[in-house]
């Protein structure tokens, strides 16, 4: 299979996670202290590298059918979580993830927290905030890179997609020094949810022993079908929702974005 869909899917998924991590790092760095924030980020990256180092070789050693069965099912569950949230946000049943307000919340909490030094870390709050943010968002990136890469037998292509996303978001964040609020995050999550669900369904069924009609070409049918059905769910939920409840401006923007 062409590596481009793999690279693009991993790129978009990782860009979403990187934007969320950037918001937390910026809040910690600007309001507290950059040195401790960078230390926290560096420790998180080392922890993530350790996870990749431990899981990567193990996951690629599994027989392909077992890998596809387990990982396919997990990926489909994971993808449905993203898709479910994106649909609920697009239809106003769930508040849109707003990086600007998330940033303000983190800034307020960071300003209120007391300052304390531990060992070589001058500001423990900035360190832990940055560490947790990067580690948690990074774990999703690692999961997507390993599962997509191992299933497609092309971890290198998945790493390229992830690295490109992280570098692009990091460079943009350094240049603008504000949360990337203009990134159409819900739209991106919607697209990634469709891709994760489609690939998960395809691999999960293959792992269970199914031979898809058309083999890999079946994905060219599954992906558009999942997209169309998801769009139909959005339309149905929008039409079922009473008009006054759809009033908030942020929600309207999100719906328009889809």
């Amino acid at each position: 299979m062409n590596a481009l869909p793999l690279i693009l899917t991993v790129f978009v998924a990782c860009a979403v996670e990187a934007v969320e991590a950037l918001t937390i790092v910026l809040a910690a760095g600007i309001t507290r202290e950059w040195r401790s924030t960078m230390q926290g980020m560096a420790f998180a990256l080392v922890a993530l590298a350790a996870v990749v180092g431990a899981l990567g070789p193990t996951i690629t050693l599994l027989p392909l059918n077992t890998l596809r069965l387990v990982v396919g099912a997990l990926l489909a569950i994971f993808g449905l979580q993203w898709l479910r949230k994106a649909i609920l946000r697009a239809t106003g049943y769930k508040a849109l993830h707003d990086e600007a307000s998330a940033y303000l919340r983190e800034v307020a909490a960071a300003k209120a927290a007391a300052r304390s030094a531990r060992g070589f870390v001058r500001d423990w709050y900035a360190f832990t905030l940055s560490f947790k943010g990067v580690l948690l968002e990074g774990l999703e990136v690692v999961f997507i890179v390993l599962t997509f890469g191992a299933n497609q037998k092309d971890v290198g292509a998945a790493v390229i997609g992830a690295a490109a996303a992280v570098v692009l978001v990091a460079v943009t964040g350094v240049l603008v020094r504000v949360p990337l609020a203009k990134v159409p995050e819900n739209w991106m999550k919607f697209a990634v949810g469709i891709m994760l669900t489609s690939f998960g369904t395809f691999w999960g069924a293959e792992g269970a022993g199914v031979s898809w009609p058309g083999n890999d070409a079946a994905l060219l049918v599954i992906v558009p079908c999942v997209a169309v059905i998801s769009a139909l769910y959005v339309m149905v939920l929008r039409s079922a929702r009473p008009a006054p409840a759809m009033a908030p401006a942020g929600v309207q923007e999100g719906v328009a974005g889809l």
Partner: protein
Amino acid sequence: MNTVIRWLKSVAAFWYDFIVGDDWQVAAMLVAGVALTAILVHAAHVSAWWLLPIVVVASLGWSLHRATARKP
């Protein structure tokens, strides 16, 4: 000891939230769908490629219905 138990609980809660997420029924339906597909393929020799897509679409619809039925 209490600290260890608390830590183990928080680790378990993190992985549950990471993998299963907001609606455990979606995960349960997916696992059942994969298991049923394997049974149909290996025991009944049915080419059940159509089953998992149906389960995916149905579980998403069911989960959305449950999430929106509670809210105005």
